[in-house]
């Protein structure tokens, strides 16, 4: 083959590879969007995951009987009902002054009936009081979203200070020497450990030995270790980029080392640290294997930091259980869309910050 023909062949392979990379991304995003879009709706984004059944009592001003509660407008209650499958009535409209808004549950606590709630059964207590079995339909991702948010906050609260202070120590205090290389060696190794191993450690140490059970604290502590390398190396890079002359001027003016760090170095490193935190959020949102073994798979909002009802599935974990256990790829991909949006926004914001940072340095 001629030299030119050979060159063109190789060039073709190069273009094909680059094209393949872009194509793969388009197919992945396209698939998630097409498969999941039908699962996205307002109620998907705002509702609880499980159906919630509650008995409430409603007192009206006008006389009301169980017969009145049927399809159409129910005047004494101020609601419009529509029959749906399973012999239930859906509340499609709720008057502003509807007595249903002042409904009480069996403990006497206010449980306001909302549009979209289902009426499963009605019994009459007296002329003006009804006991209604209300089913608030689930199918939404609120518990997982809240758990994910908790997980982000908790992991960062633990990991960010430790990571940032580590980086400060490595750059500002320890110059060279054995200790620094040991710490760097450890961090590089941490970065290479797969998350399933972190999961094993977390489930043994935090869940079992520390007796936290499957909980957000056990998950967040495990995540904190996973995040350390990212936070430390990114912050280190930022600190390295701050000119030496800044520190020297500050020290020369008589500031102590700590004053120099807190008043000169850190303010200049802020946007870099912000990027480190955004990267970490991306990692937390996407993490699954480690959380599967430490925070559990229950779709609920955790009620405590650790202990019995403190576990909760994040969005990724719910996506996993939907695919693996419930064979529901559509809902899983709907969660996938939510995840994609979060990741794209995080990518965009951290890129914008980095670009601003570079421009500032160029100027």
């Amino acid at each position, binding site marked *: 083959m001629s030299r030119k023909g050979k060159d063109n062949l190789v060039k073709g392979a190069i273009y094909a590879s680059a094209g393949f*990379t872009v194509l*793969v991304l388009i197919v992945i995003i396209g698939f998630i969007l097409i498969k999941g879009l039908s699962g996205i709706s307002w109620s998907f984004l705002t509702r609880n995951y499980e159906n919630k059944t509650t008995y409430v009592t409603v007192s009206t001003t006008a006389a009301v009987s169980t017969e009145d509660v049927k399809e159409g407008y129910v005047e004494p209650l101020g609601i419009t009902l529509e029959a749906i499958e399973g012999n239930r009535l859906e509340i499609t409209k709720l008057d502003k002054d509807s007595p249903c808004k002042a409904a009480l549950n069996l403990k006497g606590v206010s449980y306001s009936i909302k549009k979209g709630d289902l009426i499963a059964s009605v019994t009459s207590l007296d002329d003006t009081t009804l006991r209604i079995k209300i089913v608030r339909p689930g199918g939404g991702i609120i518990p997982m979203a809240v758990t994910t948010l908790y997980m982000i906050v908790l992991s960062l609260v633990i990991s960010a200070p430790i990571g940032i202070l580590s980086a400060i120590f490595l750059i500002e205090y320890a110059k060279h020497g054995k200790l620094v290389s040991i710490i760097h060696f*450890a961090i590089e190794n941490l970065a290479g*450990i797969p998350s399933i191993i972190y999961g094993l450690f977390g489930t043994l140490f935090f869940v079992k030995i520390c007796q936290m059970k499957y909980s957000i604290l056990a998950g967040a502590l495990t995540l904190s270790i996973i995040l350390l390398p990212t936070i430390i190396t990114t912050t280190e890079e930022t600190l390295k980029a701050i000119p030496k002359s800044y520190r020297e001027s500050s020290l020369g003016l*008589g500031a102590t080392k700590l004053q120099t760090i807190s008043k000169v170095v850190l303010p200049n490193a802020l946007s870099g640290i912000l990027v480190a935190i955004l990267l970490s959020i991306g990692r937390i949102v*996407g993490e699954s294997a480690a959380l599967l073994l430490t925070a559990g798979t229950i779709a609920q909002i955790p009620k405590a930091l650790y202990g019995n009802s403190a576990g909760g599935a994040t969005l990724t974990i719910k996506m*996993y259980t939907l695919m693996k256990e419930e064979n529901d790829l559509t809902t*899983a991909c709907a969660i*996938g869309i939510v*995840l994609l949006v979060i990741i794209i926004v995080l990518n965009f914001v951290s890129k914008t910050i980095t670009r601003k940072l570079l421009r500032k340095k160029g100027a």
Partner: protein
Amino acid sequence: MSRRKGESVLINEGNPEGIISMNRNIKRDVFEKIIETIFLLCALVGVISVIAIIIFVFYKGLQPFIGEDAYSLWDFITGTKWAPGKDIYGIFYMIVASVLATAGAIVIGVPVGVLTAVFIAELAPKGAVRILKPAVELLAGIPSILYGAFGLGVIVPMVKAISPRVHGQSLLAVIIVLAIMVLPTIISLSESAISAVPKAYWEASLGMGATQIQTIFKVILPAAKSGILSATVLGIGRAIGETMAVMMIAGNPTQGLPQSIWSMIRPLTTNIAMEMSYSSGRQQEMLFATGVILFIFIMIVNLVLLRITHKAGEKR
């Protein structure tokens, strides 16, 4: 006004001779020392974590092989059947699965990744770079569970259509998804290695009459060798440790060496993730033992990586 006041205090405090007051300086020095110690302690958290992870995982994972009712380590490593109910724990077929899947992913992922990196660094017009770079970053940021959904919804049906077997879950599906997952790592690291090659190399080679392509393959890529090599090793680490995406598409059989690319496989990682939540006793210890084997692979990968980067550092 208040600011000026603050500055004057600053100068007094920073006076090492302690003209104002010796006591205050000692106090300040002690304070600074305490803060430095806190910084040091934070820096040690990483070290302690690594040590703790190694100790705990190995301790628990080596339990079943010592003591009275010990399970034969040889049977564990060479066995090809996993049946916790019958007290049979063999993971050789999982080791083979992990190695084959990783090797396959690297064989596909590295050439495609390096060529894409060449395109971005040397050949692409500016507009194409502006699309490709964010695309690669986004690929890197996509959570692995989404790759699992993609594998389950796209790759597995595709494999099923061409496979002689009835199922699409297979070694081939795992290889394809892993190859895609290692792409961003390979591309971004190779790209920076290629970009770091001095422009003079280009000019010298082109000046001697070599074509663009010849220059890339005979001059640029050899010069960027160590960067590409460490990208490959990092890719190996990512592929062998990947869990959630693989679990969806591997099939996870309880026994049998993979016979062909159409066979279902059960890599080490998925073995752990599948059974951990409901296991106890020996079964759980065996999952930790699986983790130990995986950990040993990862340690080898890490050491090789350190070797490469260290050597490259010396060269410079």
